[in-house]
């Protein structure tokens, strides 16, 4: 057993390599074989999962990895002043991420055998999923910024491919483009930040950076802050923080397994993971770190306020994801790597579960997405309903479900580190979260059935992965519970170990707020004691703003059309008239001059000789006036 742990520790590169092998096999060999393609993907990704378990086993035996991760790499390329390697970095954080990513990838692949059955792009789907899994895993074990950026971009590519999976739908194509372009804005900032890291700090390697960071911070604090801010722009895009959150809700155009895997559990947390990896950089730039915290807190509240009025099931879940990502960023911003990573893990469990359950419902109802057109689904789809309820309880933060422990951890550290304003905001957001989640549950799964729908329960291939995730959503939080001696917080941390304490006031308030939210939702949508429509009318402008996502998309479209296209038109004019004008002007000047000068060529030898000798006379005169003629003659040369 220990041999296996050691093997996986030193062969961690296999973990991204195996799904990539699956991608190659499916894309270049198994295009027509549906069963074989699915089996290949599931087997190879499952093997990566087993390897990641081995790594966890190895890490648990080596506490020294917390401070000093194991890094092994090969040189990729080098030139004067720059040396870049590719390799594996293994510590507790990456072990946790590997576990989560491989587990959810495998479960989603199993689920997809049921969900995507009958779809004519079945093998293409599994090829893309495998490629995505391998890219995300490569990102997790990256040793330096450049390797991380390479896989960051690959992950973005896979997201584009998978969002636009139903390429025959215009909305899907547009959503894929929007996702790619929005994250591109973030990637640009990240790239500038990475280049600055290399140019000013001399190395992009995470371990080297963490060693040298205190010295850098002392010498050039402003520079470090600037770099931190630029690097953070990448996560703003990829992890859907305000204002680059706009792509996530539209990404729901992709199939539900994609939403579960990429836009809930793995890709969107790449930004959070990047901040965690580069935590040394942020830890010495307190202004940037505070900005991260406030932006995260604001995003959490902002997204929750939109989710309250949305009608499509997956959109509600999407805004919920943005909101929870905000929580994770906020946790990093207030200085707790532990809380953020813990919430990342539990959120992966219950959000993936909820997306898969939503997919199950949508699959059964053949595409009706509006929850108000559903109702009473628990009668015909008991398992799906149960799983969705489990996920909702988890996200609301009711103990002993997983979400309670991680959300409580975040709230505790926020209050503990003095960010009282953020603490209140986060608590209110928790209340709103519970409310809109159960609004969705009560409206879609309970109440009166809609006569037009003919739902049926999903097959075992879809239910089994959900079951596993449901189990993890219930018990998965125990690893970080405060009464454990060396729990999650011991292994995943930054800095010295603080034994976690259980704060009854924080926990009690959050549970109370969660229960209040659930009750309110039950009142409005469960028993319909209070009419939701009258509430919407009373809210008036707030309702309109929330329902229309605060018109941010419209604002961006306006910016695009007026400002970006406007600048484009100006530059086009400059290009046509000034740049081309110069070139064409030079050409026409040449033509004009040559038209005039050609008359110098008379063809008469004596004219040429005349010019020749006249020039000689002129040169002699000039050199004579300048006095060089006398020097020439004095040295004994001839005058002619």
């Amino acid at each position, binding site marked *: 057993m220990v041999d296996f742990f050691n093997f996986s520790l030193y062969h961690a590169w296999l973990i991204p390599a195996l799904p990539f092998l699956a991608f190659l096999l499916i894309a270049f060999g198994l295009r027509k074989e549906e069963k074989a393609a699915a089996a290949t993907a599931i087997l190879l990704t499952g093997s990566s999962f087993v390897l990641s378990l081995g790594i966890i086993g190895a890490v648990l035996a080596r506490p020294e990895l917390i401070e000093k991760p194991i890094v092994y790499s090969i040189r990729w390329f080098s030139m004067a002043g720059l040396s870049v390697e590719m390799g594996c970095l293994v510590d507790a954080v990456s072990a946790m991420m590997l576990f989560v990513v491989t587990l959810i990838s495998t479960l989603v692949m199993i689920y997809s055998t049921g969900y995507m059955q009958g779809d004519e792009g079945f093998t293409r789907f599994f090829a893309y999923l495998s490629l995505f899994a391998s890219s995300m895993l490569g990102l997790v074990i990256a040793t330096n910024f450049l390797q991380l950026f390479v896989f960051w971009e690959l992950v973005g590519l896979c997201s584009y491919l998978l969002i636009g999976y139903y390429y025959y739908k215009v909305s899907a194509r547009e959503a894929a483009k929007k996702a790619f372009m929005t994250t591109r804005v973030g990637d640009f900032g990240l790239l500038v930040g990475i280049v600055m890291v290399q140019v000013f700090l001399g190395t992009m390697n995470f371990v080297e950076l963490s060693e040298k960071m205190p010295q850098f911070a002392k010498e050039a604090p402003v520079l470090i802050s600037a770099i931190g801010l630029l690097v953070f722009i990448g996560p703003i895009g990829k992890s859907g923080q305000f204002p680059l959150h706009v792509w996530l809700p539209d990404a729901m155009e992709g199939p539900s397994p994609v939403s579960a895997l990429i836009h809930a559990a793995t890709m969107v947390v790449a930004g959070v993971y990047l901040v965690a990896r580069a935590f040394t950089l942020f830890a010495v730039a307190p202004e940037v770190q505070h900005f991260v915290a406030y932006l995260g807190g604001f995003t959490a509240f902002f997204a929750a306020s939109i989710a309250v009025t949305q009608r499509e099931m997956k959109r509600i879940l999407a805004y919920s994801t943005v909101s929870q990502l905000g929580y994770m960023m906020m946790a990093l911003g207030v200085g707790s790597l532990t809380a953020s990573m813990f919430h990342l893990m539990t959120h992966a469990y219950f959000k993936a579960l909820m997306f898969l359950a939503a997919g199950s419902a949508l699959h059964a109802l053949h595409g009706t997405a509006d929850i108000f057109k559903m109702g009473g689904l628990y009668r015909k789809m008991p398992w799906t309903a149960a799983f969705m309820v489990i996920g909702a309880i988890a996200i609301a933060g009711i103990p002993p479900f997983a979400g309670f422990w991680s959300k409580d951890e975040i709230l505790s550290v926020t209050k503990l580190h003095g960010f009282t304003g953020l603490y209140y905001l986060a608590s209110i957001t928790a209340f709103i979260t519970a409310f809109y989640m159960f609004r969705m549950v009560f409206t879609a799964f309970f109440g009166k059935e809609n006569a037009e729908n003919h739902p049926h329960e999903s097959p075992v291939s879809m239910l089994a992965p959900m079951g596993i995730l449901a189990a993890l959503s219930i018990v998965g939080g125990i690893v970080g519970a405060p009464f454990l001696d060396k729990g999650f917080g011991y292994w995943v941390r930054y800095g010295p170990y603080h034994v976690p304490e259980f704060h009854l006031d924080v926990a009690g308030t959050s549970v109370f707020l969660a229960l209040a939210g659930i009750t309110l939702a039950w009142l409005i949508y469960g028993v319909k004691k209070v009419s939701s429509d009258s509430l919407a009318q009373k809210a008036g402008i707030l309702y309109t703003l929330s329902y229309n996502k605060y018109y941010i998309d419209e604002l961006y479209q306006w910016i695009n059309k007026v400002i970006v296209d406007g600048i484009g038109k100006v530059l086009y004019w400059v290009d046509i008239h000034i740049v081309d004008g110069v070139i064409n002007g030079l050409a026409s000047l040449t033509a004009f001059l040559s038209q005039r000068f050609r008359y110098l060529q008379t063809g008469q030898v004596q004219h040429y000789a005349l010019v020749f000798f006249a020039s000689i006379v002129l040169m*002699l005169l000039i050199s004579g006036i300048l006095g060089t003629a006398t020097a020439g003659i004095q040295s004994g040369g001839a005058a*002619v």
Partner: protein
Amino acid sequence: MSNEALYSLLFYLISFMVLISAVAAMTMRNLVHAALMLALSFVTVAGIYVLLHADFLAAVQLLIYGGAIPVLIVFGVMLTRTPGNRESNPVNRQTVLWGSGVAALLFAVLMLALNKADFVVRGTLAKEPSIEGIARLMLGDFVIAFEVAAVLLLAAMIGAIVLARGGEAK
């Protein structure tokens, strides 16, 4: 008359002849007359060489420039006579003004340079006859130039024959 005075007299006389015949060669309307004046100019230049103690060179000048080249030129004149304007040596109206101007200006500049120049003059003559010295140099240090000149003459001869013959032999 002292040697100096005789030398000066001869110099001025011969120089005058050179220049007058040169001017005549360039301005006479009859081309054949101009060619003959050219020959006279060459012959008097031989006299200048004698004044400069270059006796062998004077002989060569008389042979080549006094004998071969005027014959060539007269042949050329004869063979290219235009039936209309017989023996006419016209002036190019377009360039005559500027041409004479440039020539005069060049002369002025050369004289100016000559005036300003400071020449290091050594008057002692060589002991050996010039022909011995020339022969020693030509067949010693400068033998390659000598050979090349021979090749050049060969090439010129072949070229002139080919050109003057005109067309390929069938």
